[in-house]
């Protein structure tokens, strides 16, 4: 297979299999492990196969153009450094999968675990093989998100949730800073390509933006790698399952930060700023982390702080800026990954087999688990830097670098002293780990008797510890060539001569190593009485907890400030918000449009008296409706309809027949809807006269009026200004007018626009209508109105009481008689309305009408039957399945659109032709007609569904009321076939 395919597989496979893993059944533990293990092994094999291509500083690149104009291409780039990281990610990934098989309990939902795990692996591989720096940030953020999901895997646990959230907050903020840094780098260099960036180090270092870029980039790296002052999230992340910790905090997540530092070391390092910021942050982290690690009571907490400290060591090395230090940093990255992963796994086994990770309760476990104990002791020794183990070599390289005579006072004093102190501390905490857990008296308060884990669970540790030993004993053969590959990829021609042998003769670094070992042992012995007290947290630093500061800040920003902001401009009250919205609109429009207005000369001639009267009526309706809305809802509704009719007539007069038809029909349906709704909404009664209204309320209403008048005035000015200016002659409407018939095949330009030119728009619109209808249906389906609104309207109660008093009458007879003539007419109108609807539909393409108007007409036909006969009467005779109508309509419209594909045209391209039908005559057979049919069917379904859903409330209400509110109804005979619970009672209820 070509390298392009292999590189793509390396990145894409983990993500794809993450989807597969997530969709496997919850009990498919073994399938999950096989899948994840296979993916990790395939990744490992692919990475290995690239080894010959990346040695000696060679690079394999695969570029997929995406947005070449913006310099954004997908570049998968494998060089020696990415290679060694990929080896760690896939290799340790495989071991962690194997370990997780035994660690995760059958009760844990493993599909989720492995899905996140694989996605994280993919993101991590993406980070190390990104050849485009923006792409790198994208994968970087993906690691933040996936690690958040992994840390919060046991989300029923508050610690896990908090830890995950803190990790995400800190690392994602860093990622944001990194994105800005990368954008700035792209700005300075003119390319986002990593190779281009690596080739222009001098440009970058000499640029004025260098410091800004450096700080932002370091923010990204330090948050990710838990460097001071962002170290606090890492111990919190220990709430994750141990396999996650073993993976995230040894080989991957936290190494992404130092990866970034190494990746950009050739272009960013070597300046004063770099030296001071990076090495001091690294040194503080190194010493502080090691110090805090000694005093942890949680096994994983100890390892977490030790991880922080080791990352500090790597950062310090990188901060020094010398090529030899960079070599040591890369070497220590690899070494730390191996021994720390094995230690986390050992801690997990101890936790798993003894039921606790608390160092105060653990003791003398060596007797129970000698194999695990031996492995853990070797790994701890590697961590402490004991000779013949890999940790020793890289640590000695570190001592060598710090011991170099340097003209800089800080480097001359602080670095070696800090290094040796941290060395002493690390020996002490390694001893604490080993002696505390495995030696001493047998444990007393464990829940279960500890024992060895299944042998397969130990295999990952055995492999890792073996690597520690081999690298420690024969470093030149075991790791030399691979390390050289990685180092050359980073340093290129600056690669220094370095020796990986374990014996360099008696020199200062060796003395430092011995000093650290001896000092560590002494320190541990001295601290034993204090540690035996079992006090939580390190002395001196106990009060200065980073996470507490972080939480304070978080609470202040996200709660206190948010609260004040909300109080000021909050959503808790709709009115102030709407008021502000309108106010802002008015003010903005004033400032934006003011310059466009000249002196206004009102045009007062040429009035058509008929229309002046019509509009005056409209104005009256609007004002009166607003005035009456408080206590006289029905009057207000009638006035509102008046305003709607004025709008409708305006459309007729000014050449918009389609709008007029639609407006009229929608006005009818809306009115019916409001009537149905008003039946169930509370009525307000005027108490006394208007003077009783409280003054603040009054003031508020005046304020609203003033704002409304201003808004209206602005709109008046706007519309007047538009209307008195001549239109642009060549606006886009010409396009539609000229092509409606020649290309759309219809003479009604509006309809052709809706179903043809803007067909996609209409498709979306009917989809919205369908969604709304189904939402309304879902909101009301199983819902009964509350008891207090169930009471029948007063008029109807009086009428029913009258009926009940007479033996020859039944309850409801009077209502029936009242509505006899209208209801007969309504029933007879049904076929007529259907024919009318068909007529409106068919003429739509050429004359005013169309699917929407026809659909509303048809639904009015249905709702008239409901009004005439009552809900039960209609539903005994007529089965309307509105939901199916909606689905069918949408499918017809969609099929018409897809049909265009069959002829090789884009979606919703409409063909047209005229067909001669018997009796009816010439009918336009445009594909648009089928589309319009879809619109028609959907509109019928949606409108009827909404109306019926509301109307059904009246059928349900008597049931709810029967037992409590109106006992007389209990003896009421079953409703007569007609007119009993008609929806007409709704307006009665509102009047």
């Amino acid at each position, binding site marked *: 297979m070509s390298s392009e395919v292999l590189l793509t597989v390396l990145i894409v496979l983990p993500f794809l299999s993450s989807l597969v893993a997530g969709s496997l059944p919850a009990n498919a533990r073994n399938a999950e492990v096989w899948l994840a293990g296979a993916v990790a092994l395939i990744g490992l094999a692919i990475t290995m196969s690239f080894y010959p291509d990346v040695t000696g500083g060679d690079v394999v690149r695969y570029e997929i153009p995406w947005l070449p104009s913006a310099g954004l291409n997908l570049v998968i780039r494998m060089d020696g450094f990415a290679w060694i990281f990929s080896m760690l990610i896939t290799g340790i990934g495989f071991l962690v999968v194997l370990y997780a098989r035994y660690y995760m309990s059958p009760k844990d939902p493993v599909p989720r675990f492995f899905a996140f795990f694989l996605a994280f692996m993919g993101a991590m591989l993406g980070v190390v093989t990104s050849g485009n720096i923006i792409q790198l940030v994208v994968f970087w953020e993906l690691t933040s998100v996936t690690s958040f999901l992994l840390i919060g895997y046991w989300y029923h646990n508050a610690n896990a949730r908090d830890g995950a959230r803190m990790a995400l907050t800190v690392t994602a903020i860093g990622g944001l800073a990194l994105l800005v840094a990368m954008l700035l780098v792209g700005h300075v260099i003119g390319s986002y390509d990593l190779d281009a960036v690596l080739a222009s180090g001098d440009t970058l270092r000499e640029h004025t933006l260098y410091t800004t870029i450096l700080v932002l980039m370091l923010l990204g790296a330090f948050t990710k790698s838990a460097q001071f002052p962002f170290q606090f999230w890492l111990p919190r992340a220990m709430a994750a399952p141990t396999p996650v910790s073993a993976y995230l905090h040894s080989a991957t997540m936290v190494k992404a930060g130092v990866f970034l530092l190494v990746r950009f070391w050739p272009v960013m390092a070597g300046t004063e700023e770099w030296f001071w910021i990076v090495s001091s942050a690294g040194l503080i982290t190194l010493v502080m982390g090691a110090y805090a690690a000694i005093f942890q009571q949680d096994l994983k907490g100890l390892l977490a702080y030790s991880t922080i400290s080791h990352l500090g060591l790597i950062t310090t090395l990188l901060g020094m800026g010398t090529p030899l230090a960079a070599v040591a940093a890369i070497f220590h990255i690899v070494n730390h990954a191996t021994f720390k992963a094995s230690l986390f796994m050992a801690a997990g086994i101890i936790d798993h087999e003894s039921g606790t990770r608390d160092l105060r309760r653990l003791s003398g476990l060596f007797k129970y688990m000698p194999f695990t104990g031996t492995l853990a002791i070797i790994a701890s020794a590697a961590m402490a830097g004991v000779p013949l183990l890999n940790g020793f070599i890289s640590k000695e390289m570190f001592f060598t670098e710090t011991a170099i005579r340097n003209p800089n006072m800080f480097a001359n004093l602080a670095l070696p002293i800090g290094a040796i102190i941290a060395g002493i501390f690390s020996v002490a905490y390694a001893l604490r780990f080993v002696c505390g857990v495995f030696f001493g008296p047998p444990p007393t308060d464990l829940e279960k008797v500890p024992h060895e884990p299944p042998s397969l669970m130990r295999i990952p540790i055995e492999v890792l510890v073996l690597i520690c030993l081999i690298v420690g004993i024969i470093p030149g053969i075991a790791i030399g060539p691979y390390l050289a590959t990685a180092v050359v990829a980073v340093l290129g021609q600056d690669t220094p001569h370095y020796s990986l042998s374990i014996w360099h003769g008696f020199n200062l670094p060796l003395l430092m190593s011995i000093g650290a070992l001896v000092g560590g042992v002494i320190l541990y012995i001295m601290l034993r009485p204090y540690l035996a007290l079992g006090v939580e947290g390190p002395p001196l630093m106990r009060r200065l907890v980073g996470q507490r500061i972080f939480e304070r800040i978080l609470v202040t920003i996200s709660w206190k400030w948010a609260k004040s902001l909300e109080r000021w401009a909050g959503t*808790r009250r*709709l009115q102030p918000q709407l008021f502000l919205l309108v106010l802002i609109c008015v003010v903005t429009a004033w400032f934006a449009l003011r310059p466009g207005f000249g002196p206004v000369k009102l045009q007062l001639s040429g009035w058509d008296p008929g229309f002046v009267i019509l509009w005056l009526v409209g104005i009256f309706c609007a004002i009166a*409706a607003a005035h009456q809305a408080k206590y006289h809802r029905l009057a207000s509704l009638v006035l509102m309809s008046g305003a709607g009719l004025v709008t409708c007539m305006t459309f007729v007069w000014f050449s*918009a027949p389609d709008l007029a038809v639609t407006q009229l029909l929608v006005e009818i349906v809306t009115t019916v809807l409001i009537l149905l709704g008003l039946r169930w*909404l509370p009525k307000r009664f005027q108490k006394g006269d208007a003077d009783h209204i409280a003054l603040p309320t009054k003031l508020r209403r005046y304020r609203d009026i003033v704002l409304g008048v201003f*808004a209206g005035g602005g709109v008046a000015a706007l519309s007047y200004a*538009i209307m008195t200016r001549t239109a642009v002659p060549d606006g886009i409407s010409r396009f539609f007018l000229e092509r409606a018939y020649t290309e759309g095949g219809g003479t009604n330009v509006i309809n052709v626009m809706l179903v043809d030119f803007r067909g996609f728009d209409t498709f979306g619109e009917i989809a919205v209508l369908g969604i709304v209808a189904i939402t309304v249906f879902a909101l009301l389906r199983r819902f009964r109105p509350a008891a207090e609104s169930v009471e029948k309207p007063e008029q109807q109660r009086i009428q029913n009481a009258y009926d009940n008093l007479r033996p020859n009458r039944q309850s409801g007879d009077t209502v029936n008689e009242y509505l006899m003539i209208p209801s007969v007419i309504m029933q007879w109108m049904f076929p007529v309305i259907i024919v009318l609807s068909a007529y409106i539909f068919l003429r739509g393409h050429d004359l005013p009408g169309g699917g929407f108007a026809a659909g509303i007409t048809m639904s009015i036909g249905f709702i008239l039957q409901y009004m005439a006969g009552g809900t039960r009467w209609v539903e005994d005779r007529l089965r309307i399945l509105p939901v199916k109508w909606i689905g069918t309509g949408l499918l017809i419209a969609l099929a018409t659109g897809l049909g265009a594909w069959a002829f090789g045209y884009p979606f919703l391209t409409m063909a047209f032709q005229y067909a001669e039908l018997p009796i009816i005559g010439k009918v336009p057979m445009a594909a648009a007609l089928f589309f319009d049919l879809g619109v028609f069917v959907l509109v019928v379904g949606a409108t009827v569904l909404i109306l019926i859903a509301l109307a059904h409330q009246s059928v349900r209400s008597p049931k709810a009321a029967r037992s409590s509110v109106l006992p007389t109804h209990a003896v009421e005979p079953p409703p007569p076939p007609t007119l009993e619970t008609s929806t007409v009672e709704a307006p009665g209820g509102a009047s």
Partner: protein
Amino acid sequence: METIFSLLVALFFTGGIYLMLSRHLIRILLGVVLFSNAVNLLIFTNGRLTHAVPPIISPDLMTPAGPVANPLPQALILTAIVISFSFFSFLLVVAYRAYQDLGTDDTEEMRVAEPANEAPPPMGY
């Protein structure tokens, strides 16, 4: 002609906004109806007021003979009418359900998500 038409649009707006700023759901609903009519009329003015020339092509012609009304605002308004109808019915049902579940139609008193005196969260974890 234009003057009084702008006045009509203006007062539709005024009435709609006034009602929408009310605290009670029913008035807000009625305000939305009036407001959407106002907006439609405002969009309509973009096509200018043209009398008796609907954008319909005579049967024997390929393109409209003389000047006709601007079809673009009309098509937009047609979509707007449909969308505001569906939006309105949704609003109506939500208002109805809100009233039934919360027992009030006063938006000031609808405080399920944000009670008036909410206790602060813990300052640490």
